[in-house]
């Protein structure tokens, strides 16, 4: 019965979305307040019914209702409860339902919390958001209904892909979708503004919190996925430039550009068409991600069910939404009045460089990701793959200048900056950076030039960011009490920037350390064998069979010593899931601030070897990996601080005079 209720609720969501896609926008052009305000109730109604549908599916998973096809294909009665729940969004249909739920949540959030947005803009935005809802709801109801039943019901399910049975991955899709879908509301704002024909500083301020929220979720989602790949896949890497990783990374790059260009629109009333274009493209790239993952267009290690029919439907959706919005853009954007002027050396120019580099980088990733498809189409069937060498050679050299400019940018003033003054203020930072780089060079004894250049730039960004904060609070230039007062009075958005920029520098240490100074050994071992890596002596003690709830595992025991002293024991596992007929690697990691010792075991190469108790052992030492997770956490936290800034909650332009002490407690 519950699945039918869910199915029905989904149909009701569609009905509400259809009403909302017409009534408010027509009301906005006719000046009918009642029609415009209807969006409030229909958007709340959409969330209500979409939640019913979502929880109906979740209930089917929790109770292991094997009359529902989706549950049969993605669950098993013995699966731990957490993964039964996570199974709700583990499949194509279920994840689509989650996507729709988040879509409606964002719509309702704008209608409830966006009290300072003018009625017409709000009504148009919510109608555009409803168009997107209608597109996805019809897609789901016509091609991918999660509530389809099976008869006769099987006695048990086929289990969720064991690789996905992991805490990190259970949370990864919801966060990622929050990011992807969060950009839908920014897209809706942009299209509504194009329809209305007016974009001003206020518009940029209304859009900013939604952009920030989406960006934060996307950052966290990508980091979580990367963390999962790091410890679950057993390869010891955290980023593989796989098409599916790339399609989540592109909206992030574009979204980052959007965050920064929206600042210029808000503060200086410039970059208007550009900000609108970025808002459209960011969501377009999110949709492209869904399309690539679900259509089987490219080969990837991640794959949803490959179904060209579904692909065709999503392509239709893409054509309507992206093609439509870009047509609107081509028509309306040239009519916008240009904004404030600025000199080549100014905050605006710095942010322009930021935007150009981020957009180019997105273009590079997009091209690299889709090049196999282009090549195949142009040559009539020849195939090739584009891997890390391409991305490392093209993406990294683009990013390094960006990091350099990031260090300087916050020092530049709006309209016209004094380059000489900035250079003077950065002298100490430059000296410190050079000294620190030399110290690291001395300590690491050898490495590629690009590695040291990257270290140099990461240090530069880190010190420059700190210096910028120090200047703001007049650290050491004024009495300490004065500095403290200033520090307390700095707006949260300013702290957000400092934290996020420093976070990128910190994450960079992790990227560089674990790429450049990584050591790896893959060896066949028998009990008692010792492997030496990065100063550690790792003894392979043997393998034993252990049982889990829905799997059994071969667990290896490794004793780690350093210079004769016992450090730790590691227990890498190879898990076999009999129902899903597949196996996973559970690597064992000893994580410290300076580096991770990472071990995974794989089945022996031959039966011969296994008879003698030999296993394939992969041991890696990856310096500074911890900084990647720390840095991304700082990025997310920085976004959160900026989001909590009162400027975003209050409609009126910010006034300097209001002191932080009067801010409402958070």
């Amino acid at each position, binding site marked *: 019965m519950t699945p039918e209720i869910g199915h029905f609720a989904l149909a009701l969501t569609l009905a509400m979305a259809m009403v909302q896609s017409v009534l408010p926008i027509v009301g906005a052009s006719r000046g009918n307040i009642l029609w415009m305000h209807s969006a409030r109730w229909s958007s709340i109604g959409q969330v209500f019914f979409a939640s019913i549908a979502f929880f109906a599916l979740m209930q089917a998973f929790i109770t292991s209702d094997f009359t529902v096809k989706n549950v049969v294909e993605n669950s098993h009665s013995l699966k731990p409860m957490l993964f039964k729940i996570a199974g709700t969004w583990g499949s194509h249909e279920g994840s689509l339902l989650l996507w729709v739920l988040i879509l409606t949540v964002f719509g309702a959030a704008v209608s409830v919390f966006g009290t300072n947005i003018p009625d017409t803009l709000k009504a148009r935005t919510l109608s555009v958001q409803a168009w997107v809802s209608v597109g996805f709801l019809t897609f789901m109801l016509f091609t991918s209904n999660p509530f389809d039943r099976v008869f006769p019901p099987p006695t048990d399910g086929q289990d969720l892909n064991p690789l996905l049975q992991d805490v990190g991955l259970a949370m990864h899709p919801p966060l990622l979708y929050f990011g992807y879908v969060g950009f839908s509301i920014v897209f809706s704002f942009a299209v509504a503004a194009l329809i209305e024909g007016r974009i001003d500083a206020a518009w940029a301020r209304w859009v900013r919190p939604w952009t920030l929220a989406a960006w934060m979720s996307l950052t966290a989602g990508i980091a979580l996925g990367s963390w999962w790949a790091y410890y679950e896949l057993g390869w010891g890497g955290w980023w593989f430039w796989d098409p599916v990783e790339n399609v989540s990374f592109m909206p992030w790059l574009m979204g980052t550009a959007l965050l920064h260009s929206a600042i210029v629109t808000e503060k200086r009333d410039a970059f208007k068409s550009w900000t609108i274009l970025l808002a459209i493209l960011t969501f377009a790239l999110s949709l492209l991600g869904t399309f690539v993952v679900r259509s089987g267009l*490219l080969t990837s290690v991640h794959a949803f069910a490959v179904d*060209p029919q579904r*692909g065709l439907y999503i*392509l239709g959706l893409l054509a309507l939404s992206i093609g439509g919005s870009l047509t609107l853009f081509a028509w309306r954007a040239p009519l916008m009045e240009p904004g404030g002027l600025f000199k080549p050396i100014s905050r605006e120019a710095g942010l322009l460089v930021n935007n150009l580099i981020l957009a180019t980088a997105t273009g590079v990733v997009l091209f690299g990701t*889709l090049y196999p*498809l282009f090549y195949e189409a142009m040559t009539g069937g020849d195939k090739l793959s584009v891997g890390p060498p391409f991305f490392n050679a093209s993406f990294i050299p683009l990013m390094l200048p960006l990091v350099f400019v990031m260090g300087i940018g916050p020092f530049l003033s709006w309209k016209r900056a004094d380059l000489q003054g900035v250079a003077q203020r950065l002298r100490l930072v430059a000296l410190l950076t050079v000294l620190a780089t030399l110290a690291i060079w001395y300590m690491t004894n050898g490495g590629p030039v690009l590695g040291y250049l990257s270290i140099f730039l990461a240090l530069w960004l880190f010190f420059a960011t700190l210096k910028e904060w120090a200047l703001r609070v007049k650290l050491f230039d004024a009495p300490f009490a004065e500095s403290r007062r200033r520090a307390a009075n700095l707006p949260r958005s300013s702290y957000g920037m400092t934290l996020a920029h420093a976070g990128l520098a910190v994450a960079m240490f992790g990227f560089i350390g674990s790429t450049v100074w990584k050591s790896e050994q893959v060896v066949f071992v028998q009990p008692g064998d010792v492997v030496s890596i990065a100063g550690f002596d790792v003894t392979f003690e043997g393998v034993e069979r252990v049982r889990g709830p829905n799997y059994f595992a071969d667990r290896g025991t490794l004793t780690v010593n350093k210079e004769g002293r016992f450090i730790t024991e590691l227990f890498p596992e190879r898990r076999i899931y009999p129902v899903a007929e597949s196996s996973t690697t559970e690597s064992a990691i000893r994580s410290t601030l300076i580096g991770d010792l990472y071990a995974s075991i794989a089945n022996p190469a031959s039966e011969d070897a296994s008879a003698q108790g030999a296993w394939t052992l992969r041991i890696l030492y990856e310096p500074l990996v911890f900084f990647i997770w720390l840095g991304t956490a700082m990025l997310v936290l920085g976004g959160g601080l900026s989001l909590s800034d009162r400027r975003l909650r209050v409609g009126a332009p910010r006034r300097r005079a209001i002191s932080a002490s009067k801010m409402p407690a958070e």
Partner: protein
Amino acid sequence: MARIFALIPLVVALVFGGFFLWGLDPDRDPNNIPSVLISQPAPEFALPAVEGLDTPGFSRADLVGNDGPVIVNVFASWCVPCRAEHSVLTQLVEREGQRLFGINYKDKPPDATRWLAELGNPYEKIGSDIKGRAGIEWGISGVPETFIVGGDGTVLYRFVGPVVGEDAIATFRQALVQTGALKGGQGE
């Protein structure tokens, strides 16, 4: 000028859309990666006979100067799908008169001998590739894999995975017909 700039994103999006539409062709399978060996001469290799088996060893020389295309199958006794595939290959040899050569990949000779004794031996010649060296030369990604090699020693076709089940058998038979190893009309 601004008008033209504003049109660029739309044009780019349309070009992308065109490629996507092409890419969605249901006959296109991005996972089907062709072998670089196709239309190239078969790689150089010379394998001894499987120890304890009467069937002679197998080398590149056996693939040159044949009257028509022959089948080269990479198999192993430890490979479960090979067991399922075995009867299909046997039928092709016994009922349709195909010539079949085998590469026994990373297998222990006693195991291979026992396996062939149990299931029957349809292979004309079998090379014992204990170290997997010939497998590397042939660029195999796993076991089983099956190649069709022309009479002059040119690799004509590669099939990855077991030739088991209606679809796979139909695909493989079609390849045999196209390369001229099998007269058309049967089974299709």
